[in-house]
């Protein structure tokens, strides 16, 4: 919104650019270089946490597009993540397909399932639409749990690590780079979708579907597109996480997980791409911080570690409520205020 001091837009191209000033380019480059260096100084455990967080961000970008931008509330996001995870795992381990093809295909598969669920959005709005995504959550997970011959049922199945021309990306370090690059691409794609014509159509539908129609926006087509894109991101995020862990079980894709995805974008801020990063990283940090605290506590009180999951539920639920009550625009909004404050740095007013 506000430009740094002494920066003026003279052409529409400049006005539209995401990365506008030289400083922003430098910061972006620095961030990418820093990202690439992460494996050099973190341990395997920490790196796994980071990889998981990054794949969650990719999936959360999907729900941000679907719910945050297009306004189609989804309470079944983790089921679409599951579709991606299982498709990719099946394609690699059963059909022997290469990881590099399986992941995009998994994304498309999840997107298509999403499209099917999205068909209900043509007639349903608001609370009634929640039901169809909730139904998707239950029905998809029912199929995964009970189709034991294919999915291994509640015992789960394995998702082999990727290979590229004989080189196995078995180490956490090498897998980090795959996910990191995927995250960069996903962010770039998401940002582009939401700031061009397609994104404007999504927001138009979210804010006022009647007016959107009068402006010539094909409601059905764009709602379905939002479902496809949102669920495709979920699928790709799910597939990447699955291969990172090596094993997948249905209990990582419960309704509670779907609520977590909604929580990420509430905490980060609905309708912003940056917000997704803030939301997921915030919750992930909270979760891991709490885990560390409890495990250190369990030396004094044995059994404190088993409190992690329920305690995290309480804290997460409370954080969602607090954000909705006191900072409904999420962390991204705080970040905007912070940036505006340092706009004239080093001479702040």
């Amino acid at each position, binding site marked *: 919104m506000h430009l740094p001091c002494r920066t003026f837009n003279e052409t529409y191209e400049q006005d*539209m650019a995401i990365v506008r000033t030289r400083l922003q380019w430098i910061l972006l480059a620095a961030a990418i270089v820093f990202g690439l260096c992460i494996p050099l100084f973190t341990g395997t455990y920490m790196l796994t946490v980071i990889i998981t967080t990054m794949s969650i961000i990719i999936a959360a970008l999907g729900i941000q597009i679907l719910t945050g931008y297009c306004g189609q509330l989804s309470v079944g996001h983790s089921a679409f993540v599951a579709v991606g995870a299982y498709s990719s795992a099946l394609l690699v381990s059963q059909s022997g397909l290469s990881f590099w093809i399986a992941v995009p295909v998994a994304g498309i598969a999840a997107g298509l399932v999403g499209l099917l669920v999205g068909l209900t959005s043509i007639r349903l709005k608001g609370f009634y639409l929640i039901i169809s995504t909730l139904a998707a959550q239950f029905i998809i997970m029912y199929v995964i749990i009970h189709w034991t011959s294919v999915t291994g049922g509640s015992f789960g199945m394995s998702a082999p690590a990727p290979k590229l021309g004989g080189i196995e990306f078995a180490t956490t370090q090498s897998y980090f780079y795959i996910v990191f690059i995927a995250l960069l691409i996903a962010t770039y794609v998401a940002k582009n979708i939401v700031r061009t014509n397609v994104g404007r159509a999504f927001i138009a539908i979210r804010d006022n579907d009647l*007016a959107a129609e009068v402006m010539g926006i094909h409601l059905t087509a764009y709602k379905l597109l939002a479902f496809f894109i949102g669920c495709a991101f979920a699928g790709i995020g799910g597939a990447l996480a699955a291969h990172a862990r090596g094993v997948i079980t249905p209990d990582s894709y419960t309704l509670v997980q779907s609520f977590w995805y909604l929580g990420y974008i509430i905490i980060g801020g609905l309708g912003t791409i940056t917000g997704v990063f803030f939301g997921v990283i915030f919750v992930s940090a909270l979760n891991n911080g709490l885990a560390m605290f409890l495990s250190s506590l369990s030396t004094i009180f044995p059994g404190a570690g088993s409190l992690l999951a329920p305690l995290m539920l309480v804290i997460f639920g409370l954080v969602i409520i607090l954000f909705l009550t006191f900072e409904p625009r999420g962390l991204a909004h705080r970040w905007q205020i912070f940036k505006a404050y340092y706009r004239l740095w080093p001479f702040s007013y």
Partner: protein
Amino acid sequence: MVSEDKAKLKLEHLHLSFGGVHALIDVSLDVREGEILSIIGPNGAGKTCILNCINGFYRPQQGNIYFEGRDITRLQSHKIAGLGIARTFQNIELFTGLSVQDNLLAGRHFYMTGGLVGSILGGVYLGRTHREEVEQRRAIEDIIDFLEIEAIRKQVVGTVPYGLRKRVELGRALALGPRVLLMDEPMAGMNLEEKEDMARFILDIYEERVNTIVLIEHDMGVVMDISDRVVVLDFGRKIAEGKPSEVKGNPDVIKAYLGKAAA
């Protein structure tokens, strides 16, 4: 300017009812190329229903609507918009989360053909989608300038005051590059000064941009002064049609709508 026989928009024997309530009964009317046509009538007479039928929100049970000779009765709303029929709403229906500029750009939706792949790959610095965005920005700047809303270009619509919002909505309708503009109570809730501004914009639009305008309005001063023809509705029926001066003197209209004061 008004050509007598060229009907831009033709409504033939429209019947519309909602569960037993008749909203429109056998309404026929022509909107001629190059005129400002006002539709007046008491509340609930079916004025807005006519607009809703024209742009495809409601499907009349009987009757047909032709636009430039083409039957549009059963077309979907977004297709009708694409043909060049734009409208504004009684209670301002803007995209409150978008900036003024993006609201207008959303109105240019039809002119952007890049689609999804284009916007994924070329949205930022390359390709046709990018050129398109720049082009459309130029087109809407023209409208922004025309409606004198430069100062709020980048403001989120939710924070813009009421009078200006009406103008933004008008701008969004213009962004569609329409051949017919339907306006539903553009002056509602405005004071005299704002009404004058709005009247000026409507007349300017009529001269420079859209030569066929359909207006629903309650302010008789505005209706009688700026419209070429007036159609009067009452309980879903058309009870009068003609030049403002003719309608003003029509005893049926006085009885049903205008009241003693106007006589």
